[in-house]
């Protein structure tokens, strides 16, 4: 069993943490969540591992969000990166601004659209996205098209640009 999970760890850990970091904006939290996911995989090894691992990870993120709301805390979907003590060069500042705008734009998407988008960015097939999110397979293309358009347009709004895709 552990051998099987070892394979899963080697194969999916980096991808899982990357997705979780994109989703939460918090690297340490992403690491912790990924460890929790693999701990659960040890307890109950999944048969179709990739969608399972990512679905569990996304459930954990959602549960965490709901818990935060229940406790009356402000839900911060995207925590800022740890600030630096040294002054940032202009290029760094611009990049930080861009990252912040992308996070804001991503936060405007519905949970399901955002999840489909992030899973697809990890190379998930439509079948895998359907399995991990509960979407119908036939709805994945529509979901992704809406998510991509929304993300881009929302980002462009924040950039002060209103032109359509060319």
């Amino acid at each position, binding site marked *: 069993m552990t*051998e099987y999970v*070892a394979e899963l760890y080697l194969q999916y850990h980096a991808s899982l943490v990357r997705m979780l*970091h994109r989703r939460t904006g918090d690297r340490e939290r992403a690491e*912790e969540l990924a*460890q929790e996911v693999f*701990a659960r995989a040890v307890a109950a090894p999944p048969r179709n591992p990739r969608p399972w691992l990512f679905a569990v990870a996304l459930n954990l993120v959602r549960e965490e969000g709901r818990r935060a709301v229940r406790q009356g805390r402000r839900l911060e979907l995207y925590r800022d990166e740890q600030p630096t003590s040294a002054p940032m060069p202009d290029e760094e500042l611009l*990049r930080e601004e861009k990252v912040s705008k992308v996070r804001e734009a991503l936060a405007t998407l519905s949970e399901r659209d955002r999840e489909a988008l992030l899973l697809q960015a990890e190379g998930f097939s*439509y079948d895998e996205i359907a399995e991990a999110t509960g979407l119908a397979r036939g709805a994945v293309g529509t979901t992704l098209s*809406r998510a991509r358009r929304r993300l881009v347009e929302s980002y462009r709004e924040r950039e002060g640009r209103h032109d359509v895709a*060319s």
Partner: protein
Amino acid sequence: MSHLDEGTLHALLDGEVPSADLSAVERHLANCRECQVRLEEARAFRNEAFGLIETLDEAVHREPVGASANRDMFFESPDPASSLRETAPVSPAPAPAAKRAASGSEQTGGRTIPPVRPWVRWGRPLSWAATIVVAVGLGYTWRGRSGPDQTSPAAVSERVAADTRSFADSAPRDAAGVANPVEPQAQLRATPSEPAAPPPARPEARAVPRQESAQPPVATSSAADRDVAKAAAAPAPAPRAAESPALNRMAAARARTGDTTRLLPIERPIALSEVITTGVTSRPPSISADSAIRLLGGSLRLIEGWNPDRYELVDSTVRVVYRTPYGEVALEQWQTDRAVGHQLVTPPSAPSDSVAAWRSRIR
């Protein structure tokens, strides 16, 4: 047939239109100017969205010192198993050259460099405990599958015990040859046994054994020859006292034989830089990031803003593999005694402008 809906256009771009529907979709597209325009619009949204998502990773790669748990994650976390995978490749019969290179990397530092494990810093007992269960369990399993010299019960016990000790020890251990976990950036610039090396100081001694395994995959440029000639004319630096006894012995032996040339820091020029669009097809054994860095003599090129999915070794070539919606992209790198080369291998479906952008971000 009515016009294609946007979901179908995106599915087409993603290669996800069911085969039963594909010919009808393509037929319509061939005759419908409007849908062709919408397809291009969908393509633009798709590419831009992917680029925006990637932007979120750039913070990871450029994260300043002291806050880079995520850097740890990609370069260290998979280590309990991946470092072992070097001695127990999944491939049943790895190429002899790959074997030589892998074993050379193990011996380069005179010992196996223990991994730094970021989870030892975590305060959450559950995560910590779960990690130990997973990592020790996995480590034991992998070691059980290692080669003949790894399988004796004593050897396995010793390695597991060493792992357990390292879990319990969360202090930075740079003096023991392990990169300080709060400065993971250093691992990219210097090999773990010289954590405080200034940027110009190349890992001289470590570069030596590499030359035995590295076969020149490309012709080196004349610039490379000039560089070596220039390097040979300079005096050899003394081996660093902080380096391991094995490295010091190696350096001393070379000094005795007058072979100082290869101990010099060599600023290696790029021998080849090109893009190959055949895509990543095979799946060779994975290696750890540390090994990848060592195999390349201390410098590893990455695509800025991307997180590697894995590192692989094919003969003497290190491949840094990334996942993209178009398929896997590999940044292949190799080193000879006179030059270092790299090439980008991209999926055939990747748009040329994306490939150009990726290439421009190789650092």
